[in-house]
């Protein structure tokens, strides 16, 4: 609510109230985006970010409050009107029809025509899109390529290009890096700087506070449907922003109990998978939290998959509790009480159209059935776990689709608690999870360790790994190149090994 006059604000939402049924998603939120600025918008899931954005996109209508664009108040925005006003949206994974070609997707709904005729100007469209692609991305995409065949980054490029064709004045990026790898994200940040320099105003929504601090001028923090602060980024920090989001001190971010590791649960010796990783050896003990990290393709993820029986190793041995495992399928791995919480939770971790109960007991139905399923004990188990993991849901019969990302992840973990697993393989457990749920997942990992489980956490968030693990193994080009004791290590040291800085030095020397 910094400037209430029209002091250069291109988009101004004032005291917006929006109710769905009885619940208010927004209860007096304001957002004022200055012309030519890069404005960050952050908040936990449920804080009202997406409602506010949908309102700006003309997809929702405010119950109360005013919407001004360029100083002019609009009572009723429609998606079409918003585009005409020059405001365009880049969503992470929506709005592109997979069966369209690049060319069709770029100009859908605003095809160029040969002047004076109803015919499509294919040459003109091709020239215009090629020009933008070359100018901003230094690349060319075949116009005939199918959207479905593009990578996440390429899809985003198509979306941005589509927006740029329309000469936008405001670009809204909604969680743009969620599906990108680090290098692609860096390219996106460069692009945003450039667009901003060219006079396009940017509104940037993200879970990643680091990104906000890196690229934004101003940040607005939403909490419980209100804006709790709008700050110049130069005068704040990621820690302060995070604390504002959750309304508490960030010192409690990584709860880690002191557990003295016990006997060896999982022993991996010289494990190899052709062309993926080689000579991987380590032991995981009772009560231990072991971190794995590495770049995409470093082999860390493939090791986790292989341990769970999703890939067949080409060499080496794995034993659980001293017993050798020949696991070529997940069924055998789960019988040895291994559990995998996969990275792509919406595809592999939880069934979105099954209920919380059905998901929770899916891996442990034998415990609840003597011929017929004992619905009573199934429900009791689920209710216990929902309470223990603080899963926020409309009830244990609600479809998992209706839960937030963090709560879906808790259901994916609950499934294995119900199975009474001993060894937990967690693959990027907090990606796409809001900060409050992250802390709860960290606490749960600690609790599992206290109860004597062994936990393997694969993550590319190094600060997270240092905060919650005992040891970290760094993978580089298919091998474990370094081991760290988490409590004695700084993020920079780990990062150097992750990116192979030492490797290059060694090769050079």
């Amino acid at each position, binding site marked *: 609510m910094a400037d209430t006059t029209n002091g250069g604000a291109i988009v101004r939402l004032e005291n917006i109230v929006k109710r769905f049924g009885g619940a208010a998603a927004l209860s007096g939120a304001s957002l004022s985006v200055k012309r030519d600025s890069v404005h960050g918008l952050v908040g936990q899931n449920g804080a009202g970010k997406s409602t506010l954005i949908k309102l700006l996109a003309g997809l929702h209508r405010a119950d109360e409050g005013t919407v001004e664009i360029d100083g002019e108040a609009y009572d009723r925005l429609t998606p079409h009107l918003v585009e005409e006003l020059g405001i365009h949206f880049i969503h992470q994974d929506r709005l592109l029809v997979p069966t369209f070609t690049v060319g069709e997707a770029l100009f859908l709904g605003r095809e160029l025509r040969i002047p004076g005729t109803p015919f499509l100007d294919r040459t003109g469209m091709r020239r215009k899109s090629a020009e933008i692609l070359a100018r901003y991305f230094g690349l060319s995409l075949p116009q005939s390529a199918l959207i479905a065949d593009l990578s996440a980054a390429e899809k985003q490029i198509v979306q941005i290009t589509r927006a740029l064709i329309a000469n936008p004045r405001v670009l809204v990026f909604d969680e743009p890096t969620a599906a990108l790898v680090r290098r692609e994200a860096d390219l996106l940040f460069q692009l945003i700087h450039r667009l901003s320099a060219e006079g396009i105003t940017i509104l940037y929504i993200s879970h990643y506070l680091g990104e906000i601090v890196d690229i934004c001028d101003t940040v607005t923090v939403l909490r419980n449907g209100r804006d709790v602060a709008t700050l110049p980024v130069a005068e704040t920090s990621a820690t302060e922003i995070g604390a504002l989001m959750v309304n508490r001190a960030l010192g409690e971010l990584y709860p880690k109990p002191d557990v003295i590791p016990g006997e060896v649960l999982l022993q991996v010796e010289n494990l190899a998978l052709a062309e993926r990783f080689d000579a991987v050896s380590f032991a995981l003990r009772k009560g231990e939290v072991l971190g794995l990290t590495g770049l995409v393709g470093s082999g860390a993820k493939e090791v986790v998959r292989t341990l769970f029986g999703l890939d067949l190793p080409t060499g080496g041995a794995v034993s659980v509790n001293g017993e050798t495992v020949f696991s070529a399928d997940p069924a055998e791995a*789960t019988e040895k009480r291994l559990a995998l919480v996969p990275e792509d939770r919406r*595809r592999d971790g939880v069934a*979105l159209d*099954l209920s919380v109960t059905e998901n929770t007991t*899916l891996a442990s139905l034998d415990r609840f*059935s003597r011929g*017929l399923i004992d619905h009573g004990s199934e429900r009791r188990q689920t209710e216990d776990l929902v309470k223990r993991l603080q899963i926020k849901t409309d009830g244990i019969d609600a479809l998992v689709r209706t839960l937030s990302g963090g709560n879906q992840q808790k259901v994916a973990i609950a499934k294995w608690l119900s*199975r009474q697993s001993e060894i937990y393989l967690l693959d990027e457990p907090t990606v796409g999870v809001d900060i409050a749920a992250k802390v709860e997942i960290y606490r749960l990992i600690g609790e599992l360790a206290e109860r004597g489980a062994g936990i393997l956490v694969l993550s590319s968030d190094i600060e997270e790994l240092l905060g919650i693990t005992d040891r970290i193994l760094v993978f580089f080009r298919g091998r474990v190149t370094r081991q760290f004791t988490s409590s004695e290590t700084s993020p920079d040291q780990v990062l150097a090994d992750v990116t192979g800085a030492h490797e290059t030095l060694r090769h050079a020397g």
Partner: protein
Amino acid sequence: MATAFLSSLTRGIGRYALVAALTAVFALFATLAPGFLSGANLLSVLVNNFALLAIVAVAMTFAVSAGGIDLSVGTAIDFASFAFVSLVLAGQPVALAALGGLAGGALVGVFNAVLIAGIGISPFLATLGTLFVGRSVQQLLTNGGNPVYLPPAGVPEAFRFLGHGTVAGIPVPLLLAALVIAGAWLVLSQTRFGRVVLATGIQASVVRYSGIRLSRVTAANYVLVSTIAAVVGLILTSTVTVYIPSSGNAFLLNAIGATFIGTTFDPRGRPNVPGTVLGVLLLGVVANGLLLSGLNFYWQQVGTGLLIFSVLAIGFANRKAAARA
């Protein structure tokens, strides 16, 4: 408040719409068609228009629950029928021949299981292939599709029991249908197997990532589908004392229709046995009512088509209402 009430009302409609539709159709024909409400006619609807189709549709419900389909249920019916007749002709005891018939039908399921769970062909294409192969096999076995009759003198009384017998006054086909319906409901909604089948249909990769042997469940499911369908082969043969090659396919489209009617009306859009059974009743009542109304036989399919269109329309309206809520 008002919207909450409306949305609860439309949700309620979703759940009971099938019963309501059935009642409406019933009332319609009770006024239009003389004799529709007579006890004899209703019994005939149950035996002729309901019992056999219900069994096939219940079998189909298992396939659809797992996210697949079985276009070869007719083939399973035919193989069961052929095996049953052949064994009786060969002088085997009827009970043994009936078991042989079930095995004959199950064989079709084993073939499907190998294609779908073993090789990984999509259920639609795999069972379509089975349908064609099955047709050829039957033509080869019967000199180009000649019916296999049981000589009237040689039909054991026990053989006719499945099609014509009664137990405590209830026709055996109806009794068998009731048993299959009850058993299928139990398996699909109350057992571990049923839950896993349902989960497979909803999101197969999660089932695999949960440490469940997906291909085993899928294989067992397709064998089960064919075995249930085989029961119809036995009843059919017993009723008409003849095996007519490829006659089982007559049930295919209605079975699919009934299953999807039941799925459309489920609040969560899940295939379910009670919904399928109501779908079969709806189809059966419409067919019989149209017949009794004196409408030309050839118009009956139009009636069935209209029924399915209206079901889709209601289901669509329901889902839109649910999405808005």
